[in-house]
């Protein structure tokens, strides 16, 4: 009995210290982000002056993989064709959609078959046909056999004409100067091989003619909670790592890469659902181990808006998929972990990801289950239980409020004061159930990965309610 009690106390302290450790880690990232954000905002304070665009920016191929995106593809591609950037092309890759995606594209953009000498540099499923738009000369559509998102992106890279490519989700809505902002790190430092920007949630916003015309909050509570979550994930989850050159994730929703570097690395891996993260981690590993100077940069500007799941089922699927993607990305590149030449990516970011993001759900769920069960059965004292809950809630609160503070110090995306009030309310509410259920889903994703269950992409049903302007508060 004595040893049982000692074990319980040991576990109690393990979970308590784990929660303190993980959150102190995030707080450190927060501090780093604060410095980066201040510098970024100051140094880009004159970006809206007319002379800030040189007209000599490198051309970019915007790659849009689409699978069953009939509802949103027209608006998304229209917005991508109106970007404020001197030279770019849009390549839509229809990945064997089963719905009317291809018909919608044909109808909206007057496509005609084009005899392209397709260059298969990266492995991808066979291409059925390549089309060119007669109404928009910079638009091409690749119609190919279904092979998954990574496969579609590889086909897009094969067809891309320009030295930089930008992978964009078909349901994304971009800011007009999104390309200009994300290309900037490539201009500023020739060592830059990849750059990503902040993704925000489009639910509740009004989109007109493919562009976001007003920022609103959704009525759906799940989407509201995800807004706070995205703020946290992007404003310090990624920005904090950027000055250390240790950004391990560039969102698949919007990220720019140097094409030659990605082709040399073998393109996107087709055997993972986390192809975006896997590529970035692999680029770190290859460049670090081969001693090739490089930079992978995160730009805090809100440049891309995406539709968030509004039902528990779809949200669960998304989170399970993300956790599996994370697991695959890390295990496929374990060579980076504590590699002598791993730098901040191998010695800080990678171990952080392993302990707090990858195995985190396991320890978090075990922590909650243990503390609650042990408390009910009297193994853990009321004092210890309350202290544990206080620490878990306190850190959850401080991290979310601090991300809102970062947002308020920088971009002020949500213009109306009552919107900030609603978000602050969400910051508190998310600690009572939402975060815990998220940990459960992520644990499920981890287990599915362990048992090698097959995963697919593109099973999210898009409502695109924001495209007609509905739902804004």
């Amino acid at each position, binding site marked *: 009995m004595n040893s049982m009690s000692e074990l319980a106390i040991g576990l109690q302290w393990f979970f308590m210290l784990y929660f303190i450790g993980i959150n102190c880690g995030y707080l450190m990232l927060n501090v780093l982000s604060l410095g980066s954000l201040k510098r970024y905002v100051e140094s880009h304070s004159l970006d809206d002056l007319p002379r800030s665009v040189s007209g000599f920016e490198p051309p970019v191929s915007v790659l849009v993989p689409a699978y069953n995106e009939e509802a949103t593809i027209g608006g998304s591609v229209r917005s991508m064709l109106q970007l404020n950037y001197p030279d770019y092309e849009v390549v839509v890759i229809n990945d064997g959609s089963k719905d009317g995606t291809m018909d919608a594209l044909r109808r909206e953009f007057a496509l005609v078959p084009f005899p392209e000498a397709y260059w298969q540099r990266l492995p991808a499923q066979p291409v059925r046909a390549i089309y060119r738009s007669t109404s928009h000369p910079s638009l091409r559509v690749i119609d190919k056999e279904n092979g998954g998102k990574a496969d579609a992106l590889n086909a897009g890279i094969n067809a891309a004409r320009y030295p930089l490519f930008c992978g964009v989700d078909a349901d994304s809505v971009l800011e007009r100067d999104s390309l200009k902002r994300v290309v900037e790190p490539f201009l500023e430092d020739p060592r830059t091989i990849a750059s990503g920007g902040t993704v925000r949630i489009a639910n509740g916003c009004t989109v007109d003619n493919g562009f976001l015309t007003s920022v609103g909050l959704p009525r759906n509570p799940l989407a509201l909670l995800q807004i706070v979550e995205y703020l946290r994930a992007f404003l310090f989850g990624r920005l904090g790592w950027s000055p250390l050159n240790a950004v391990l994730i560039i969102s698949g929703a919007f990220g720019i890469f140097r094409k030659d570097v990605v082709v040399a690395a073998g393109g996107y891996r087709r055997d993972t659902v986390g192809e975006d993260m896997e590529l970035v981690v692999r680029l770190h590993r290859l460049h670090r181990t081969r001693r090739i100077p490089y930079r992978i940069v995160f730009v805090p500007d809100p440049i891309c808006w995406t539709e968030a799941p509004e039902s528990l089922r779809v949200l669960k699927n998304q989170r399970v998929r993300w956790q599996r993607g994370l697991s695959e990305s890390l295990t496929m590149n374990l060579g980076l972990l504590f590699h002598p030449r791993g730098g901040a990516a191998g010695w800080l970011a990678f171990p952080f990801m392993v302990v707090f993001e990858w195995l985190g759900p396991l320890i978090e769920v075990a922590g909650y289950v243990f503390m609650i069960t042990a408390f009910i059965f009297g193994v853990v004292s009321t004092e*210890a239980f309350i202290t544990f809950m206080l620490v878990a809630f306190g850190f959850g609160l401080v991290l979310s409020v601090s991300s809102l503070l970062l947002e308020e110090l920088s971009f002020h995306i949500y213009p109306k004061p009552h919107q900030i009030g609603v978000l602050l309310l969400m910051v508190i509410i998310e600690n009572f159930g939402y975060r815990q259920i998220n940990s459960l889903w992520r644990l499920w994703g981890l287990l599915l990965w362990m048992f090698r269950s097959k995963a697919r992409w593109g099973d999210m049903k898009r409502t695109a309610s924001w495209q007609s302007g509905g739902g804004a508060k």
Partner: protein
Amino acid sequence: MRFDQSLATVPDRVETLSWLPHDPLLALVFQFGLLIIACSMLMLVAVFVLRIRLVLRQRREKRFAAAWQPLLAECVYQVPETLPQVPRAMRYHFLKLWNYHHESLVGSARKNLEQLAYALKLEEISRDLLHQSDLRSKLIAIVTLGHLGDRTQWHELRALVADPSPMLSLAAVRALLDIDAGATLTWLVTVMASREDWPLARIVAMLKEAGPGRVTLPLIAATEAAAGVEGDARQVVRLLRMMEVAHTESIGAVVGRIVRAATDPEVVAAGLRLIQDPHDLELVRSHLAHESWFVRVSAVRVLGRIGEPADRVVLTNMLGDRHWWVRYHAARALIALPFTSLADLEIIRAGLPDRFAADMLGQAIAEARTA
């Protein structure tokens, strides 16, 4: 009570707080949790305060813009006779507004804006802001001084060119070019070549604004000097890229010399891109078999621009190159040749034994038809 006595009573007082855990370690963690929540509450208040400040600032800026926009618009025709004062708190905002208009307007409207600026003593405000510590103020001050052509801060701006921050140093470069491009370029071009942290796209844009008349000679001098130094290939490449905005007829001789002497493929490719003189065609053709694909691409592109009828055969052969981009640019060069019609190219395509070459030419013909 003495301080040490007060300290001695702390544990007793803590014990009296019955709601704290009795285990001292647990109590410490508990208090840490409380501290974290207190920090959250403070941040929450900070978010509200920041939002209130933002709303007030936006209202103030809106009122200010409503008062000043018509006056700035009037400057298109004449400088308004009576001008309100610019409050100290609105100095940055006004400078930004003024610079926006200055960069959007040309000719006499721009001159009027400059008169207005002197009437409001913007040069004095800018000098003051230039010496402030925050980057935002410094940047707007530099840009304004450049637009005003203010020479009084020349030495400060010149010193800023050496600043390690690319943002600050490039703003100073632009301001110096705005003030006196001729005097600046003589020494600045070599700095532009060596500062690899300065984005080439921005530099080329600035040189383009300065105009080929001003940039050509300093570029030629700097390129010849850099080409004469061993191991400066990267600088030579940067300078050759900058030469794209120079007078093409003036740079031909130096570019030809550099391409002939160069062993670095990057230098050769950058040099070939600049060749415009048909007298250099032999030099261009001699690089069609170069081992680096991007040199071959540069060579076929030049042939598309200045090639002779005989080059049709050369380019047709290049359609069979092992690299996709060489084949693609060879096909486009064939299309660009002035003495070759699309019908001629269809005939050539039909006779090509290499399927890859035929496909590539087919693509280029289709592109030309849909262009």
